[in-house]
């Protein structure tokens, strides 16, 4: 059949970067004393989702966008109604005995919905712009009230970035910026007490070393004691002795940095940078607008989480609970990210070809048709 073997048609570099990150993740989770075998299970599930999504024709997703939106709302409402609470927030659903975190899923679901909407028009009409904002509001509020500030921030980043990449007009982007400026003074009234305290701690670290600043301080101590080369795998004092809180999830970067040092940190950031560039490359090479925006959305999801997670671990950003993609322990996040990367793969496999126009062979080919050319399988 096809002239090219399957491994030539998938973006091996993207898959390789993801696999490398997953391996680093399992090693770090092991060093954190968390359930690394269970993480392997999540990775297996996520790998299956990755393969399935890359084989699945992403274009069949666009018509399903309305259904995806409804499913997202249902899941987020269910969390509020029957979710399990932990650490002062109601975030988990129990599905067949496994904890499911709908806010993790919702990040990618939002990407699908926005990609479908934005790919319809270019340039974006004000009506569509307003519709998108109206549609984005309910899930955002549902997430913010769990409360889950981290996911809400990722939500906001996805919305903004996809509007930007989806061809929103400068005026539309400016209006959002203006609304943001107006909203900032209202922030203290919207944020939960602990979220406000985290912000205060970020602005004035050391004001409360025992209370809200404890996590931040311990994470920074761990990162700092990693030094240039790190203390070695399983040899981080802070991580091994349990001084870093949430050390398999939110603060996993801190104990990674303690064990592997600046060198390891740069390798990790490099891997993420490489992965992000491959995702953008898939977007740029997409055969259609929907695929491009799908990739762009996944790019933002990964990018926002990496920046926020690493940023808060090193004290460069306020604390907001987001996982470090593929590194942090967690089923919902791991499977979701791998499925999303599978979608990117799906786009990459069906990438646009540049047809060297040969009127003799295809005299009537126009641009639209070129966009529809299917490469494989």
């Amino acid at each position, binding site marked *: 059949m096809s002239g090219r073997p399957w491994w030539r048609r998938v973006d091996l570099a993207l898959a390789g970067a993801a696999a490398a990150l997953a391996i680093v993740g399992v090693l770090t989770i092991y060093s954190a004393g968390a359930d690394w075998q269970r993480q392997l299970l999540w990775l297996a599930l996520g790998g299956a989702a990755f393969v399935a999504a890359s084989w699945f024709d992403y274009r069949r997703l666009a018509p399903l966008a309305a259904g995806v939106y409804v499913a997202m709302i249902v899941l987020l409402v269910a969390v509020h109604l029957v979710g399990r609470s932990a650490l002062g927030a109601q975030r988990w659903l129990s599905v067949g005995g496994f904890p499911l975190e709908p806010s993790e899923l919702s990040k990618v679901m939002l990407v699908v919905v926005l990609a479908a909407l934005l790919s319809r028009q270019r340039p974006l009409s004000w009506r569509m712009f307003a519709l998108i904002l109206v549609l984005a509001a309910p899930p955002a509020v549902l997430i913010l009230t769990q409360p889950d500030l981290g996911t809400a921030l990722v939500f906001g980043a996805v919305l903004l970035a996809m509007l930007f990449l989806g061809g929103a007009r400068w005026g539309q982007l400016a209006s959002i910026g203006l609304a943001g400026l107006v909203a900032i003074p209202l922030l203290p009234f919207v944020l939960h007490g602990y979220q406000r305290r985290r912000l205060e701690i970020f602005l004035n670290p050391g004001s409360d070393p025992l209370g809200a600043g404890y996590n931040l301080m311990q994470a920074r101590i761990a990162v*700092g004691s990693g030094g*240039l080369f790190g203390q070695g795998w399983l040899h981080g004092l802070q991580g091994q002795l*349990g001084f870093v809180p949430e050390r398999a999830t939110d603060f996993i970067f801190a104990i990674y940095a303690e064990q592997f040092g600046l060198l390891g*940190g740069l390798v990790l950031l490099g891997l993420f940078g490489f992965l992000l560039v491959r995702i953008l490359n898939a977007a740029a090479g997409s055969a259609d607008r929907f695929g491009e925006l799908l990739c762009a959305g996944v790019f*933002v999801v990964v990018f926002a989480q990496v920046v926020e997670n690493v940023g808060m671990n090193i004290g460069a950003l306020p604390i907001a609970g987001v996982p470090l993609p593929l590194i942090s322990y967690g089923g919902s996040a791991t499977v979701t990210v791998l499925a999303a990367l599978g979608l990117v793969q799906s786009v990459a496999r069906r990438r646009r070809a540049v047809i060297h126009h040969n009127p003799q062979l295809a005299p009537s080919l126009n641009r639209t048709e070129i966009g529809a050319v299917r490469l494989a399988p």
Partner: protein
Amino acid sequence: MNERSPLVSLAAAEHQPRWSFRLVAAGVLAVLALGFLAVRLAEVQVAEGPSLAALARENSVHRVVLEAERGILYDRHGMPLVANAPAWNLEVVPAALPFGAAAREAEIDELARLAGIDAGALSAEIAAADPYGSLVAGPSLTEDQELTIAERIPDLPGVSIARHAVRTYLYPTLLSHVLGYVGPIDGAQWPSLKRRGYQPDELIGKVGVEAGVESRLRGVDGWADVVVDARGQVVRTLDSQASVAGDSVYLSIDLDLDRWTLAALQRGLARDHKKAGASVVVDPRTGEVLAMVSYPGYDPNLFTHGISEADYSKLVTDPNLPLLNRAIAGQYAPGSTFKMVTAAAGLQEGKITPQTLLNCPSYLTFGGWTYHNWASWGLGYMNVEKALAVSCDTFFYQVAASVGDVTLAKYARAFGFGTAKSIEMPGVEAGLVPDRIWKSVACGVPDGSSDSCRWTIGDTVTLGIGQSALLTTPLNQAVYVAALANGGSVLQPTLVHEVVDARGRVALVHQAVVTGHVPVSASNLAAIREGMREEINRPYNMNYWFRAAGVSADGGGKTGTAQWGGSGLDLPTHAWFVFFAPFARPDVAMSVFVERGELSEVEAAPIAVDVMHYFNAHRSGVQAPLVLS
């Protein structure tokens, strides 16, 4: 396939991604953001790395002080007087408690329930404590509580149990004043103790021998550098050095004699409805204190086991001052017990001889003032021996007047009056030997013409009978009478008989220290001693007590009923009795003091006889040297 589909063939040509401006912008932003994170990461790990790494070590590597066991105090025969009882305390490291408010509260509630303390109080204590320090929460745990909590420790992050020793006094009220107690370090003491390696939470001897031989009892603390996890549990020990227990200190006190002495004092006080008193028994050959009692006493265990507010205020407000060790810190006029000093001065200065006869009228007049004898009738002419035996005041007024105040004060000081004795406990008072300079300073008004500032002949004659402003303590009295007993050597009193270190080596054996010899010839001293022997052998008087108790009156004694609280005729009095025995080769010298005693012959003297009753029965025991294994 290529042949079948020209379209596919076309499409198989190299693909070329189309980077829109906005995609490029997103890519640049991503690279910049990751670059920014990399720079910040380098700052934290390289620039701040060493200081943060030091914080990590502080977090997890702790130097634990291994408290040295405090030395045990024994009596001279090796009877233990104190014990280091094991006790357990709850320790909480606030920073290591669960971070979440609910989990934290739940743990504090659980902890309070297990330890039987108030959760609100515990919560407040934790909130106020140093977050990274170890807070000792609540009172000591019972053994049951300790076992229950120890089992739960794995579920209670930030909580540990500290085992330590609580000083327990085995003969609480009996030896309270001798042993004293240990307690936390005062803020004022801290700077100097810190230099000597004390820990801020260490217990230190506060009063009594516990304080006096602190450096012997303390031992040398050991240490261990341990790695602890975030829950405060020790993961491993890096390095350590064991502690060295404090020395065993064998006191000169004879436990049984001391017990008897207190009982005798209590019996005597009860018989005469008196509230307070003291007695010191010394060996006049060595200066070793065989018994020291001060009544009322207190239970020093209250201080080491945690005293309640009510108990403490009861102790400090008690009008009988149970916390005052009268034996060393109670300062009273010696009254007639001082007459041996006046006699010694008169004889040695040649003002009288043992044969000189002086009249003993009921009163004499000096400088326009009248000074009375205790008897309202004249007792006739008598020599110094008789004068001591009947304690004639007017006899000694005359001697004092002829000797003069300066010389009299010199003799008083030679017998150890006005000197704070160097004994192994803090708070020893000197008493007071008044003189002209003292009076001019003490009166406070720089008016040389006033009798309250100027030394008068009245001061001199009353000083001769142990009044004026003269003050002494039961300990000074015992040392004084010991000097009369042993032929004139003023000894340094001691409470320490022997010290044995942790390895069982004898570190110190007490040797008698003579601080001075009284400047009195042997024959003059003999005359004074005869007077003291005569006093206790007068029929129908003192001798009655000896006969009644079946104790041989082989020794010398002197009573004293000292007025206090001003001058005049109807002043309150204290009763004294000083005594030594046997007469020829004394091995016991003692002072007995009855606060507010009115008749020394019937109140103070019988107590000494009571003590001698026991002492004679067990005399061999006292002389037996302490044999150590």
